[in-house]
């Protein structure tokens, strides 16, 4: 479907996925990060695809290990080893309700390094979901620049954004948003239909993703046959199956009981620590936020 193949979806070298189990110990993550590239359970694109824009070239080379989300436009104009994964510069967004224009975000600036686990908190209406949507490329800012994974996504048209999202972003929704007529396996496989992977490869990747979230035995179950926690784990498997650059989660535990919420938070934490996935999570829940390494507060459209 695309003009490229994910030739390195499974790394040729002894990749981490070969040792991957649902209960994998997190011990090796620092070593993996130290190797550079924020080594991930499913291999990254490794720059073999045609970049969406020239600035994307070398994005993977520039992947850096740790770092914290920081306010302000501290991004360097040059490509450096520690180039941030997400750069937001003076972004504003407002919505129109009838004749009223309601400002949601005001001059937000934020930098998120690769491998970060960022929690966005704030009261209802503070603009945290809007900010998440902007980072994920499902909404466009009125003003300001958003650069994610080396791409200026604020400038992209709808089609290019769709392509970009399919490559770079994994979504986890509060209400799971699984397709009810598809089994868990088929839901996980869904994003892979947009790739040029063979049926066999798709099956392998979907099974691996389900194994990561510990739902191999539920692969043929429909969403209605799963508990809320299990549905959310399927949603996470769907989010990671394409090996995206970042995971965005909008209240991932908001619809779950305490035990299920803990399972999901454990899983997200493991994706960040073991597999160096960059995660941006919106939450109301302080217990969820404390799992993140960086917590930023939004209030009335402003980062505080």
């Amino acid at each position, binding site marked *: 479907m695309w003009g490229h193949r994910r030739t390195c979806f499974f790394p040729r070298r002894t990749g981490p996925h070969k040792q991957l189990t649902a209960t994998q110990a997190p011990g090796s993550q620092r070593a993996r990060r130290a190797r550079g590239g924020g080594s991930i359970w499913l291999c990254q694109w490794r720059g073999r695809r045609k970049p969406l824009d020239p600035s994307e070239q070398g994005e993977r080379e520039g992947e850096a290990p740790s770092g914290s989300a920081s306010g302000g436009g501290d991004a360097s104009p040059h490509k450096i080893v520690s180039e941030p994964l997400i750069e937001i510069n003076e972004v504003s967004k407002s*919505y129109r309700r009838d004749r009223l224009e309601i400002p*949601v975000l005001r001059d937000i600036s934020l930098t998120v390094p690769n491998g970060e686990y960022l929690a966005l908190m704030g009261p*209802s*209406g*503070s*603009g*945290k*979901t*809007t*900010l*998440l*949507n902007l980072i*994920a490329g*499902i*909404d466009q800012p009125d003003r300001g620049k958003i650069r994610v994974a080396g791409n200026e996504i604020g400038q992209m048209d*709808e*089609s290019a954004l*769709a*392509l970009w*999202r*399919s*490559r770079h972003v994994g*979504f986890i*929704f*509060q209400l799971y*948003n699984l*397709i*009810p*007529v*598809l089994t868990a396996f*088929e839901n996980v*496989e*869904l*994003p892979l*239909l*947009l790739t040029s992977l063979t049926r066999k490869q*798709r099956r392998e990747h979907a099974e691996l993703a389900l194994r990561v979230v510990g739902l191999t035995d539920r692969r043929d179950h429909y969403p209605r046959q799963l508990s809320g926690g299990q549905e959310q784990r399927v949603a996470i498997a*769907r989010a990671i199956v394409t090996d995206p650059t970042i995971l965005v989660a*909008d209240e991932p535990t908001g619809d779950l009981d305490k035990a299920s919420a803990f399972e999901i938070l454990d899983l997200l934490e493991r994706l960040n620590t073991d597999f160096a996935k960059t995660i941006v999570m*919106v939450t109301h829940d302080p217990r969820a936020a404390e799992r993140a390494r960086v917590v930023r507060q939004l209030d009335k459209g402003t980062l505080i």
Partner: protein
Amino acid sequence: MQLLHLVFRNLFRHKLRTVLTVLGIAIAILSFGMIRTVIAMWYSGIEASSPNRLITRNAISLIFPLPIAYRNAITAVPGVTDLSYAQWFGGIYIDEKHSQFPQIAVDGSTWFKVAPENQISDAELTAFMRERNAAIVGVQLARRFGWKVGDTVRMRSMIYSGDWDFVIRGIYTGAKKTTDETLFFFHWEYLDQKLRQLEPWRAGHVGWYVVKIADPDRAAAISQAIDARFKNSLAETRTETEESFIQGFISMSDAILIALRIVSIVIIGVILAVLSNTMAMTARERLSEYAVLKTLGFRTRHLILLIAGESVLIALAGGLIGIGLIGPTVSGFDAVMTSTIGAMFPIVGVSIATRSVSLLMALGVGLAAAIFPAWRAATLRIVNGLRRIG
């Protein structure tokens, strides 16, 4: 799994709704196909007409006869290769309900030369020619009444007095599918001789002449030449191609046919509304799913494929069921009509054209019904679809 797989899964998400919609489309396509078939059967005579045959009749009306004496004058017109003649009999067999088939007095020696599509064996034709009150009937007519060669058929006439006995000496078959196999032919000589006895002032006349010409391109010129011969006579003629002659009959029913055509279009409009409603409901229910799919990277064309695929599959399923039912329903309709008011149509059957048009209509309805939901999905903003504004 492919996208088509998701289309099929979506198709059976609301089984009852899908089944009812398919059923509605099937009934509508069946009605559409039936109407088209009835109209086609009405026009089947035109298809069976021959371009190298002209019909000469009385210029005033078909009910006024022409003198038999015109025979030689018409034959003498340059371009005419053969000539035969016929007279409407208007017979009643058993009762009026059973009499819905044409009985025609023909010149036996020439009729089957000018109308070779009525195929009969030489032996049967010889037997027919040997007997004054012999008759030749179409195979469908014989089948309908269980007639066989040697049977005697007694009829009365709405035009001529007395009882008329005919002996069936042959059964013809049609050379083409469009050939009428429900005709009843007997000797014009028999009619004329009997008229000379009973109503002598009506003898010596024919209803129309069938003129065979060598070159269909000269039909107009030959027609004019024939009519010119009888200009200012007591019985002026009107000569036209066989197609125009039959068309003249059909035009008497034009209003009905136009009404039927309008109804068939209305039916298509109704199923379009039904399917559009179903698809619009479907799209409304799945807006959040479309938003999720868009979020995952599915583009507008994928959503259009999902929606149009589902719509077309529903329409095609209904269409194919409807088309499959047209044949049996038309046969049943014909049987009911035949048993109640008599045979209406000489040729009963569903043409490939009717099936094709019905299928195209179903396909068109499927695509058209997908336009609005597809547009809605295409223009859907993801954030609106997810209904989450933080």
